[in-house]
């Protein structure tokens, strides 16, 4: 998709887009397992150095403009941060650049809260081994 001028994006922003720009926990886990999305952790480098999830890829938000070549246009790009505020900035940027993008509304804190105990085991069974989030 070609880039979208911000003015045009706002003019066409409607109830459908308001829903389409978001993805919740259940759909995220399902779409990731099916290989339909590219999951991007957009936190700062120090945050990623402290802890990370084994899924997806790390591209800091402030490096995103220079690293668009790492994104897979065939997939929906799902952005995530601890909550969702920065993820939404990343999602908006990518959308305006012409990517199909959604932000994860639960945030990484909700994701790791879900992925403990038996849920971690069951999800790993579904998606196979993980080697840790890459840079």
């Amino acid at each position: 998709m070609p880039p979208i001028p911000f003015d045009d994006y706002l003019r066409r922003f409607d109830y459908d887009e308001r829903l389409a720009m978001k993805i919740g926990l259940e759909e995220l886990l399902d779409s990731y397992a099916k290989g339909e999305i590219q999951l991007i952790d957009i936190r700062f480098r120090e945050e990623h150095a402290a802890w990370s999830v084994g899924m997806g890829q790390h591209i800091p938000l402030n490096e995103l403009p220079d690293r668009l070549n790492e994104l897979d246009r065939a997939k929906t790009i799902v952005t995530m941060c601890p909550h969702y505020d920065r993820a939404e900035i990343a999602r908006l940027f990518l959308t305006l650049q012409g990517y199909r993008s959604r932000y994860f509304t639960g945030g990484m804190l909700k994701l790791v809260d879900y992925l403990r105990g038996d849920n971690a085991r069951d999800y790993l069974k579904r998606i196979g081994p993980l080697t840790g989030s890459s840079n």
Partner: protein
Amino acid sequence: MDALDTLARKTVPAAMGEARIGLDDFITAYNESRCELLDIRVPEETAVWQFSFGLRIPANELPDRLDELPSDTLLVVACPMSDRSNMARSYLAAKGFEAKYLAGGLLGLADRLKGGAAKTLKLRT
């Protein structure tokens, strides 16, 4: 009095500071190299999300892997919340280790280390 008796006798409000450590105190102690983090979650949990520092030994493997633990520093035992870490901490304390469980848990620590606050942690490699 054996180690378990001692644990039981110390289970009073005034002595709980010996059993647990808060998130900020942990970060300070870690930065000053006064403790080591011990993540006792099961391997499936550490595969899906992990801290980049500390030791990882599942709680149920502790009895066979005590020799991997440092005995000259405080062990801060952690799980997502604080139930399993509390049990593991009791076990390690009964075995003679200096150990506390991380109050607030790994979920609390992940929350604490978001945004600019991540810079407060001085990672050692």
